[in-house]
């Protein structure tokens, strides 16, 4: 079966790849484009470890065909840090110890950033429901929720704070 040629904008840059018609966007990101930050925990959209933003919508990249990304704009964990410094969500994950093994972390950070892009002042309940599609087996979510609330508070202050180089 011949491969499909796909052109996208990936983390701000033009990116092209060839894929099988059956390949998922996650497969393409990981195996064709070499971006292994998005993880496959289940391949069925239940764990959220592969979360990316496609044309402004948060999606499980394991549930999107790679070919569907034609002409699309994709943001992955690798594109979250801006101007070579960590995004506040990444910074707060570090400061709160909101990761243990770190495998689910890219999906959580992409999802949390997508939340804060829409809702700069979420309640704890809103954070918990927004992140309910992302599984973490290590942390019990406590420090993740705190990190996201803290990142939201910092973003609302609208002042650059000390951030670690990415």
């Amino acid at each position, binding site marked *: 079966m011949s491969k499909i040629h796909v052109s996208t904008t990936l983390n701000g840059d033009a990116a092209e790849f060839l894929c*099988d018609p059956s390949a998922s966007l996650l497969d393409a990101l*990981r195996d064709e484009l070499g971006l292994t930050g998005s993880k496959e925990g*289940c391949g069925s959209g239940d*764990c959220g470890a592969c979360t990316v933003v496609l044309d402004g919508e948060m999606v499980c990249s394991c549930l999107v065909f790679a070919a569907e990304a034609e002409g699309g704009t994709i943001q992955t*964990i690798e594109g979250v840090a801006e101007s070579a410094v960590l995004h506040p969500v990444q910074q707060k994950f570090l400061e709160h110890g909101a990761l243990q*093994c770190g*495998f689910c972390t890219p999906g959580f*950070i992409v999802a949390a950033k997508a939340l804060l892009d829409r809702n700069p002042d979420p309640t704890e309940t809103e954070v918990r429901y927004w992140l309910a599609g992302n599984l973490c087996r290590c942390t019990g979510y406590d420090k993740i929720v705190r990190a996201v609330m803290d990142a939201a508070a910092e973003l609302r202050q609208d002042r650059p704070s000390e951030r670690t180089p990415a």
Partner: protein
Amino acid sequence: MNAPETMKQFRPKEFRHVGTRPVRPDGVDKVTGRALYGPDFKAPGMLWGAIVRSPHPHARIVSIDTKKAESLPGVKAVATGKDFPTLQSLVMHVGEGASDIVHVARNCLALDKVLYEGHAVAAVAATTPEIAREAAGLIAVEYEELPFVLGLEEALAEGAPLLHDDVFTKGVDPKPDKPSNASMRVEMGGGDVEGALAGAAVTVTGRYTMEPVHQGYIEPHACVASWGGDGQAQIWCSSQGHFAVRSLTASVLALPQADIRVMPLEIGGGFGGKTTIYLEPVAMILSKKSGRPVRLAMTREEVFRATGPAPGAVIDVRIGADADGTLVAADVEFKYHSGAYPAVDAGAGVASAIGHYKIANTRVVGTEVLCNRPAAKAYRAPGAPQVNFAVESAVDELAGKLGIDPLELRLKNAAVEGDPQTSGVPWGRIGWVECLEAAKAHPHWSAPLGPNQGRGLAGGYWGNYGGPSTVVVSLTEDGTFTVTTGSPDIGGSRAAMAIMAAETLGVPYEQVRCVIADTSSIGFSMVTGGSRTTFATGKAVVEAAREVKQVLCSRAAKMWNVAEDAVEWQDGEMVCTAGEKEGTRITVAQIAPRVAFMSGPVSCVAGINAAGWLPGFGLHICDTEVDTETGHVKIVRYTAIQDVGTAIHPDYVEGQIQGGAVQGIGWALNETYIYGENGKLDNPGFLDYRMPVASDLPMIDAVVVEVPNPDHPYGVKGVGEVPIVPPLAAVANAIHAATGKRLNSLPMSPDRVYAALHPEG
């Protein structure tokens, strides 16, 4: 962060770094997606593998025809169990517990018989994953189906299908003359249990049950193996112990261990389930046959069907007390699933059942039961949560019958230092009473409850461990330090190692970097498991760092031409403290560029077998709200109190406590393996195997109690296992408090809670 002021009294002295919360050294890579995990690694020229698994729970393999698969273009190798060398029975102690290497090999690829649905029977390697999967479908396996058995009591019944004809019950004297599905029996205790129960003012009796549950790590198993023509091999994988991967793989393939180099990739969770091997020897065979590196990776469904689970259980408990609440006797008998091969949770289960109470007359018996399920593996405090659920539920029931506050009943009977454990060995410096006192003082314990809410508590413990670890602390040429360990970092341990090294050396945390070396680059270290790493590997870090200080002081003494004992280490500086050079100082940064050219580089190794570990104790308080119309249970408040000895990096200590508590909540409320009558797993995915998500939970208040371990330089006891022990009973006791109904079977899912509330149907 959450510890009440009263807890601070246990810390014997102030530290500079221990107890602080710096950013972990591997943090930036993990929040940017750069960290490489097991499934992320690729080697040039690599082939993709796929595994053929049994559709039957129990069957004889009549034949395996691989011809069609081999002739598919792109297929480079096919492997079956016959490709492994003939192995003699050899019991190896590498992970958490012992395994016979023959069983390890058969679990990687079956030979003659398959023992559970999902058992691996063959494997292929091809140029693309799609071709590999297609080829796997072309392998024709002819099976002769055999009767199978899933249940504990069914497997022990007369005439039950026998899984192995060479397994005789261990721990029974004399050795039985017939093989059995009971692979092991463990008994501890003493005194006159029946007499004391007969004389007790109050007794409770109960049977508690649960099916197996999975560890649920989000990263599926994956590896890449490359076996060269000269016999030497490299394996890249994530595991809780790359030395265990090396020794098990070498033994399965009859290779010298030095010929295998295992590179530890970042590990995406393990919880005990990654202390063994599944894929590595298979990838090795495929690599040898194809002459190329081979990648094998599991899907989530394969993870559920073929790895892990913690045993399910049937537990019978009888406990008796005097009218004043003194516990006088306990009789605990449990059976655990060991699955397809003998497992070892019964011993730990027996040791973890009732040792937290002073009871004069005890009998605890555990039996491991073979059945046609995946081979049980360690899961966080292996063997302890199941039996603790039964005992702590029964103690709660006893408190109700006695009319005594459940916290007071536990305090009255709590074991303290010097009291005998169930084995008879006295407890060391444990912090159980301190946890109970902390619970009593915590505002949660006296907070008001709302309608349909109930509060439960439960306590539990885990023995923790020490064991062998190797660490190298090296001085760089600019005066910074590297700490090299052989202990995979599963939850922030690099930060803990760097903190302990910085504390010992008296230098800033950022001047110490910790890495995990491959099996050929550092000496042996046991798995990261049993809550041993911060204790045992940490002890080796401190020992090596102390030696670095000593060597550097002697170098300075030589440089100044003074006696060695005239130089002291003070906060990262060498200071002359006697003679005419008294008061002369040199910093590490000043001496570092020169030392290598004086008497050689400074690099100190500590290879230790760490003794002096102490158990951890925890007490959890849980508030539930029960929806009487649906049976849904909501956790509305949760506090987990634990004695950790000393918290080296409190964020990751709290994180372990919170994460363990939530795994326990999942076990209590949602998680369970569901098998159909056909012996096949019905819920091999995260949709139907329902682990807790963020919206299921409140914040988990982790209260760190510190009763330091006198046998660790900074007082560490170990943290990770304990917090999964109390939640099962804490949740059950809270549901009982809310509804008056005691649920004895896990999970306490809405249908079961509803049925308990509406017995009329």
